[in-house]
């Protein structure tokens, strides 16, 4: 084997690791909002995945391409339209849905261009968020949602229940749901009302024929 040109992060962020675990080896993956390419590099080196990325920031794209990843500078709201149906085995959108202008359109595109879509997002229905709003009457700010309302890139927050409802409306099948709690513990559980109270983040494996 040739020398490895890439310094891959030895440890993936916990949610990314769970997403990586869902991906079958030797598959074709598009990571939308891939940042500096940690997940893609991991999938390439550990699972021999044909890894592609879409990233909006110039710095992120440069970092990715410089480490040998196939990444396009682009925007999930605009640049998914061009991909053909079922072009990828997996399309991954991690913690990015809430920052898109048209989450519904993006979600529809995700399941169109892939056999399996993996979507993760911060759950605005978590009890601490609800309590914050109830008690303080102000937009919640936390370690996982660190921005003030006037500067946040997260313009379309939703709850796990909202997301499940949107999937139903779009006739998207949720084949698996992982709920990440406050301690970072990840559990394979149904995306029900309880999950909507206790989950800080939801990770969903989706499919649409």
């Amino acid at each position: 084997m040739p020398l490895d040109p890439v310094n891959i992060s030895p440890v993936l962020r916990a949610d990314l690791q769970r997403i990586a675990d869902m991906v079958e080896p030797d598959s074709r993956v598009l990571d939308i909002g891939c940042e500096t390419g940690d997940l893609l590099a991991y999938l390439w080196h550990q699972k021999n995945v044909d890894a592609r990325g879409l990233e909006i920031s110039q710095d992120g794209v440069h970092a990715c391409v410089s480490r040998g990843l196939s990444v396009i500078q682009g925007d999930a709201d605009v640049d998914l339209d061009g991909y053909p149906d079922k072009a990828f085995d997996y399309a991954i959108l991690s913690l990015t849905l809430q920052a898109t202008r048209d989450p519904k359109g993006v979600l529809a595109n995700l399941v169109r261009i892939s056999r399996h879509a993996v979507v993760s997002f911060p759950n605005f229905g978590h009890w601490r968020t609800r309590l914050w709003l109830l008690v303080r009457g102000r937009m919640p700010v936390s370690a996982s949602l660190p921005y003030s309302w006037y500067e946040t890139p997260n313009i379309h927050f939703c709850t796990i229940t909202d997301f499940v409802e949107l999937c139903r409306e779009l006739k998207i099948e949720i084949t698996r749901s992982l709920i990440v709690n406050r301690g970072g513990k990840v559990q394979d559980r149904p995306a029900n009302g309880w999950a909507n109270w206790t989950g800080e983040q939801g990770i969903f494996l989706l499919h649409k024929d």
Partner: protein
Amino acid sequence: MGLENSVLKTAPIDPTTLPGRRVRVAVDQPMILDSGATLGPITIAYQTYGQLNADKTNAILVCHALTGDQFVADRHPITGKAGWWSMVVGAGKPLDTNRYFIICANVLGGCMGSTGPMEVRSDTGRPFGLDFPVITVGDMVRAQKLLIDQLGIEQLFAVIGGSMGGMQALQWASAYPERVYAALPIAASARHSAQNIAFHEVGRQAIMADPDWQGGAYFDGAAKPTRGLAVARMAAHITYLSEPALHRKFGRQLQDRTALSFGFDADFQVESYLRHQGITFVDRFDANSYLYITRAMDYFDLAKDHGGVLAEAFRATKVRFCVMSFTSDWLFPTSESRDLVHALNAVAANVSFVEIESDKGHDAFLLDEPEFHRVLRGFLDGAASHRGLPTSGMD
């Protein structure tokens, strides 16, 4: 004052005496051009750098731009200047000659040793001049493929080029996908825009308006259409830069004087610079070649060759693409690279796309742009790793 004084003294280029490698192709069977005309035998003048490995898997074809040539990383035999991409090609450079075998050929229609309008015809004993058939980017690449065949290289590791060189890289990937592992079109486009055709027409008209052009048959006397060619170069050179770059470099500064002359001398540094660009260009370039090569670029339209759908040019391609553009390039703007990327996405091609921040205009791909070089190196390392070639081991 005009350009005459300095321009008329130039010695003619004699391509047959230039250093470097040469091969004759299309000897037994002439090449059929896109126009339907035939041409052959064809001479291709080329340079190589580095060593071809035993499997012949480490070859990179560098395609030069309109006024470039095969002397990528050599001191230029006419101007004495460093090669046009000596910042990119060399030991330890992004196109690392310690690891890759770099090939660069003078394009068909060129004037640095490859068959073009300057070549003396065997049947008439006179140069082709305007009897040379009109060629296309497709024809240039067809001729390059004959060279690669002769070198016994089954698949090029990469084809890379900026501007017209990028058009050739795209043409290679489209016409011979199985012969290309990675394609890097830089500051390029899948079709030449109306604005670019317009600029080329200005250049051609400048050449043809020069009485010394003589309908392209300027071979007998000493006079050559150097004034027309110099003006063509001056106009074109402006399109390779950007307003901020020109301002930064020259502003409104005066040339060798403290006050305006109230005449038509080169009062401003920018005028003097452009005149210099025009005057030095004619030493190394042939006016007819300029006509033919600009025409080839004008005719380039990959979508048109595929039923009007650009994606069809790359259907089921396995080539890995790296598309790069520069923010201040208004000749081949980022939007055109993005159109190309969308077409490649439509066939789920493996593509990277990077826009590099630069205020240097179209010429940025030829200049010292560390970020560009870093991304280039990274992409090639990644592709080399996938191809099973040694990489630089750098991150």
